[in-house]
């Protein structure tokens, strides 16, 4: 046959809860009540944590903050599927999954207050430092996933995070391709929040989805409603199972929405319409899951009040601890550059030491 079809591909999208929290029963994951409410609690904790950071920032007590508001379902649905031995390679908008993995809130606050010490994560927490150049960390995740494979791990995986904007960078491509070639133990987890600062997704690429790129690398991929925590839970589980099995990487696109400004340095009213925000407010991942839980008789106002009190108390305590930390010695500027300081840093350290006296 002189005209042959040499490749066929379809890309799926999963949704379980509709915008009002009504579930497609056939697709509902078999989770216990605790697990169901656990997902909700995780999201509520993230939101409180995030809101506090925004408040601190307005008061001049925080640096530039990139809010995760609206993306909690993505991060919670993934987080509960992770094992202790898994690795994260986060971008700058992964606070939710980071605090869910045992990184103290005070450390994440510290990073964004501008303190490298926040990055010295506790022993046993497998998380790379936050990477700011978009998409660059996907290669770290590809390499880590290869490293895990070479070490013979058969459970641990690496998760590389990126946004829709990041998917235009060359590193996105190189990472997925490299991962595919080496069958690295890597989940590429893309939160498509439809904006890259002021650039909407349709100006980022002429492709309809990011998920469909997977086929170009010979790896599986899918899209999931990123404002539906149950759907993300199911999709992440499936994706992670694939990666854990040793069959190579997986590309999971969570279609979500950035409900805040890009960061506190941004003013989204310059470039996006209030209507769009309103549309997505109705699809808030937390409201939606609460509606589902309430209608499932798993949640009520009392529980809600108790939860909010609990997470508020935690957040306040963490803020207190975070703000109690005195600034690092100025000599820290040079002290972590190399294992041993070269002569010129020895000299420069002396300048810093003298000035700080």
């Amino acid at each position: 046959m002189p005209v042959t079809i040499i490749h066929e591909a379809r890309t799926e999208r999963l949704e379980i809860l509709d915008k009002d929290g009504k579930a497609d029963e056939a697709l509902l994951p078999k989770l216990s009540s605790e697990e169901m409410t656990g997902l909700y609690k995780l999201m509520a904790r993230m939101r409180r944590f995030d809101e506090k950071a925004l408040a601190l920032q307005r008061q001049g007590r925080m640096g530039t903050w990139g809010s995760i508001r609206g993306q909690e379902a993505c991060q919670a649905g993934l987080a509960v599927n992770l094992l202790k031995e898994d690795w994260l390679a986060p971008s700058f908008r992964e606070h939710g999954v980071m605090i869910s993995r045992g990184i103290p809130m005070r450390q994440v606050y510290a990073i964004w207050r501008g303190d490298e010490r926040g990055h010295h994560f506790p022993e046993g927490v497998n998380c790379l430092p936050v990477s700011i150049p978009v998409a660059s960390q996907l290669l770290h995740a590809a390499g880590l996933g290869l490293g895990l494979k070479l070490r013979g791990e058969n459970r641990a995986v690496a998760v590389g995070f990126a946004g829709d904007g990041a998917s235009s960078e060359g590193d996105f491509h190189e990472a997925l391709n490299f991962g595919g070639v080496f069958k690295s133990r890597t989940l590429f987890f893309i939160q498509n929040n439809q904006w890259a600062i002021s650039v909407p997704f349709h100006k980022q690429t002429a492709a309809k989805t990011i998920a469909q790129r997977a086929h170009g690398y010979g790896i599986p991929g899918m899209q999931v409603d990123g404002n539906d925590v149950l759907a993300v839970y199911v999709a992440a589980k499936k994706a992670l199972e694939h990666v854990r099995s040793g069959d190579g990487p997986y590309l999971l696109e969570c279609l979500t929405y950035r409900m805040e400004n890009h960061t506190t340095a941004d003013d989204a009213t310059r470039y996006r319409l209030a209507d769009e925000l309103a549309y997505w407010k109705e699809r808030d991942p937390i409201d939606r899951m609460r509606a589902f839980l309430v209608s499932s008789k798993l949640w009520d106002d009392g529980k809600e009040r108790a939860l909010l009190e609990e997470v508020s108390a935690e957040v306040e305590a963490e803020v207190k601890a975070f703000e109690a930390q005195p600034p690092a010695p100025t000599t820290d500027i040079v002290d972590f550059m190399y294992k041993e300081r070269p002569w010129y840093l020895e000299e420069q350290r002396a300048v810093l030491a003298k000035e700080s006296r």
Partner: protein
Amino acid sequence: MVAKQTAAAEKTEKLTLAQAVNRGLAQEMERDPSVIVMGEDVGADGGVFRVTEGLLEKFGPNRVMDTPLAESAIVGAAVGLAVAGFRPVCEIQFTGFVYPALNQLFAHVARYRNRSRGKYPLPIVVRMPYGGGIHPPEHHSESYEALFAHTPGLKVVIPSTPADAKGLIASAIRDEDPVIFMEPKRIYRAFREEVSVEPYALPIGEAKIVCEGRDVTIVAYGAMIKVAMEAQEMLERQGVSAEVIDLRTINPLDINAVLRSAEKIGRVVVVHEAPRNVGVGAEIAALVQERAMLSLLAPVERVCGFDAVFPFPRLEEHYLPTKERVMEAVQKTLGF
């Protein structure tokens, strides 16, 4: 050349440095329909520092293009656009995000005229805010001018005042060769000055004597001019007269301006916020000792950023050169 004062009759407006670059861009786009602006968030958002504000409204989406988030693409596509007859002005959002574009800059932009034996000169400008002082997250404070200055085929321009910024961006755009135009974000809005409302161009490759002096020459550029001038004022009070030279162009350096001052005074301090090792200060020290050794009364001193990663905000102020460090270096040359 001593700073040219705006002629009394000229119509002026009071602008910040960011606004002055904006005016320069708008006027060059008006003058020449082949000038286009492209980069991340340069359209509706007007650039994260608002330097391209209003250009989209004025010139439309065919001349002010929000690109996908891909720096290599921005600069690489500019090569093709330049060959097609356009004069692209690319914005890189921060100097710390120019690295993905270095392949296009080093392998192509810097070499195209030479490679094609003059057939394809590339009148491309790559603008980028650089330097510290605004307490942002990592990668937003970098000063990597040395990389560009070391690369044959590029010109490197760094203004320090609104009036210079407007005239130099015009020259950069009109230049037939690629120009890296680095904008000191720390002083984007630090002060305003009267700037001629008419379009004008200032020569690339000419330094400016910001302040004449007798006892020491301070060579600086960009945001460090402010620091140098603070030091100059303090020194003045101590009876030390400092001459401050604003390089304005890092490549080609205005060697004559520096040498004239060095020969006149014999003591030179170079200030920049980039790391010291193999930085622009090294080149100036090397040139001055090479060409004015017999005039030197003391070694050329360098006051630079530390040879360390630019720290996160909480330690940032300790990284950047301060007037105190400049004064100390001046004292050292005086006491030599």
